[in-house]
């Protein structure tokens, strides 16, 4: 299978230069490769919320559930619980999963459910034309905050670490190879994988230049150490200054998964009538 086979006839309506193209392209390549290596593509289900990011499901010729704003995670969780053989990948926005649907994200981490979440973290509401999101820097001026926000941003990987996610990484839409690497790791990882992608929105928050100047790739960090992961994660707090921004895998661990507890529950075939009748006896 070739990455191109994973395209659809849907017309792509992202802005020229949007970071989402990198995510799309990296994900197509990774899934095509995985198919070659024996993770069949028909076992993959993509789930998205609503926002620019979410259009990705229309652009990938893969099973998908194009859900509603903020709700990719519970849909994905149930698909995994329903059929543990499926690989379930969520595409979500920062408005989507850090504002509207934040609780679901935290519970995915807490449950360590074996799904992957790619956060298209452009730090704005793209599709509704550029309002601030939970990761916008202090003072960000969008339509709902024309005089600048008065709130500090949230640090999503830090939140995920506090909540029990077992794979946490950061990517950047300038650099498809690196994205491929972490997407692949995240998908293969057993447990909840969270990838914060600094996805540049060229129309409302063009950070290419700033990010290019500030990002660096992690090397040799001990990804099994909670403390080290936390330190690296906290080294940049999504502010607008000149702090360096680490990219790559922060943390990976092994922990019990909710889907494991469900995998043995199978519908009973025959004998249901008998069981019901027996049960009715107990109601007498």
């Amino acid at each position, binding site marked *: 299978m070739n990455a191109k086979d994973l395209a*659809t*006839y*849907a017309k792509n309506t992202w802005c020229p230069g949007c970071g989402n193209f990198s995510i799309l392209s990296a994900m197509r390549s990774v899934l095509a490769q995985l198919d070659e290596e024996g993770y*069949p593509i*028909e*076992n993959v*289900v993509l*789930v998205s919320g*609503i926002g620019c990011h979410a*259009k990705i*499901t*229309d652009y990938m*010729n*893969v*099973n*998908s*559930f*194009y*859900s*509603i704003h903020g*709700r990719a995670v*519970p*849909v*994905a*969780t*149930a*698909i995994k*619980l*329903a*059929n543990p*053989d*499926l690989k379930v990948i969520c595409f979500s926005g920062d408005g989507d999963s850090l504002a509207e649907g934040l*609780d*679901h994200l935290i*519970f995915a981490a807490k449950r360590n459910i074996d799904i992957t979440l790619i956060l298209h973290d452009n730090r704005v509401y793209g599709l509704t034309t550029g309002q601030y999101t939970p990761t916008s820097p202090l003072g960000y001026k969008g339509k709902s905050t024309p005089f600048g926000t008065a709130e500090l941003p949230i640090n999503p990987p830090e939140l995920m670490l506090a909540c029990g996610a077992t794979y946490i990484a950061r990517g950047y839409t300038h650099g498809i190879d690196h994205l491929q690497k972490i997407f692949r790791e995240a998908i293969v990882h057993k447990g909840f994988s969270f990838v914060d992608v600094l996805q540049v929105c060229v129309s409302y928050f063009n950070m290419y230049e700033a990010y290019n100047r500030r990002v660096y790739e992690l090397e040799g960090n001990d990804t099994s150490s909670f403390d080290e992961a936390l330190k690296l994660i906290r080294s940049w707090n999504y502010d607008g200054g000149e702090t360096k921004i680490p990219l790559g895998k922060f943390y990976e661990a092994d922990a019990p998964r909710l889907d494991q507890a*469900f995998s043995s*529950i*199978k*519908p*009973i075939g025959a004998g*249901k*009538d008998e*069981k*019901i*009748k027996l*049960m*009715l*006896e*107990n*109601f*007498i």
Partner: protein
Amino acid sequence: MDDFSTLIGGIAGDGINEAGMTVARLFNRLGYRIFMYYDYPSLIRGGHNFSLVRASRRNIAVHRDKIDVLIALNQETLEQHRVRLKDSSFVIYDADKVKLGDMKQKCCGIPVTQILKEEAAPAVMKNTCILGGFCRVVGMEWAVLEDVLKKHMPKKLEQNLRVARKGYDSAVEFSRVEKTDQQSLPIMTGNQAISLGLIKAGLGAYVAYPMTPSSSVLDFMARVSPDFGIKIVHPESEIAVMLMAEGFAYAGVKSAVGTSGGGFCLMTEALSLAGSAEIPVVIIMAQRTGPSTGLPTYTAQGDLHFVLNAGHGEFPRFVVSPGDAEDAYYWSGVALNMAWKYQVPSFILSDKITSESQYNFDLAAAGEVTEEQPVQWSGQGQYNRYQYTETGVSPLAFAPVQGQKIKSDSYTHDQFGITTEDAKITKEMNDKRLLKERVMARDLEGYETVKVFGDMSSKTALLCWGSNKGVCIEAAQKFGLKTIQVLVLSPFPEQMLKQALSGVETLIDVECNSTAQLSRLAACYGIKTDEQILKYDGRPFSLEDLEAEIGKIEKLGNREKNGNNEKHETLGRISA
């Protein structure tokens, strides 16, 4: 004895529900039909709870205000319920706790506290003790109680039996309940019947966030999940609940959710998603007194129009409101089948009374629930999730299917499932959904969506839905009226209802809400109700309540045989 009501009261935490169940089981063993109303406030310990168990030779589904036996574990029970006593009633009480005062009735004190002390029994055994006394008072054989305890109280059985026996021995027989020649039947709540109906029809997953009066479905499903291989999820919120249910459905697992008003509100966005993406899902919506938190443990029928219109945009839905455990079992099965046959959200609209009351359940009478298979994809050509067909129903397939893609979409989409903003497709997809509704409505003509009871020739009929079925049937009987129960509320069974109305000149609507919601719905189809008897204080109609109200209706007052003209302060009545 034809009709016998027993009330047992105490504080929350005393096990009053279970004690009521024991009374019900005793009568059940003797072949009586039973109904039990359980009344409790929203708290965990303390307060005042009571179980009102009515036993009758006939099928019943309503309680009476007046009682034949009052079992008082504490003073409050006696004070609160003495108005219910008839001269012929008996009172059984904890002689160590309750001061009787002046009583016209035959009273029998049981030294409960003392007996418990003698047996070094824990406080909760006071129920067993006083129920021992109850059996003796109403003249039931010891063996009947022994049998009930053995089956239903296996824990500390020996001690329970000793305590009960002492209660039995310390009481006196005032009367003798005869055995009938009817068979005992299972006793269960509406929620249990709903659960069994869903399980029978093939439920694979149940997802819920606790909310009275739906929570006992979650309890029951969780307990029986290993027996039937049902996946149970209690997630972070009702929003997650509904979306998880839809995720299960996407993956081919038949799912249901359960909630009440406030939780249902949170599901409406994903309800609309189910409408757009054509995802089958069953919603058990158990009404309680609103608006908002209202009275969490009391009843209402206040959410009919909300359920009929919830979710933005237009899409078909199936809505059924069962009136007792047998309806609940059968129609819950139908609800699950309809959801999957037409890929629509499907509602089981219940309320505190249907959900939590105890009913006799006759599997044979309930109707056969089958596990229908949805239209499956043929495997030919390319799979299109939203394929146009003659019924509007697109065949289903579930991942993984080699070489195919299954695409579900909340946006307006084309047949393959890819988002479109095209005007023509927008209209076509809307028409597809409307077509499904018409086909479903036609399909439902083969079901008894409207049921008629009582005197078929009567020119006056009571109109009801949901839990008022039982009270209407019985009150109508008294006045020689007809009762019309609307079971399916969407697609609205206009023809069936009009048929049921043929010959009816006076139509009296009976509802537990303040705006006559079924009347309003019927009015949209040109059906006018002449009177509305409405109750909206959180309490269900007792038989006496409704009889009194019917009696007040001028044209009918004189037809009442033994009318009761007590004033019912908590009843509202508006004229059409």
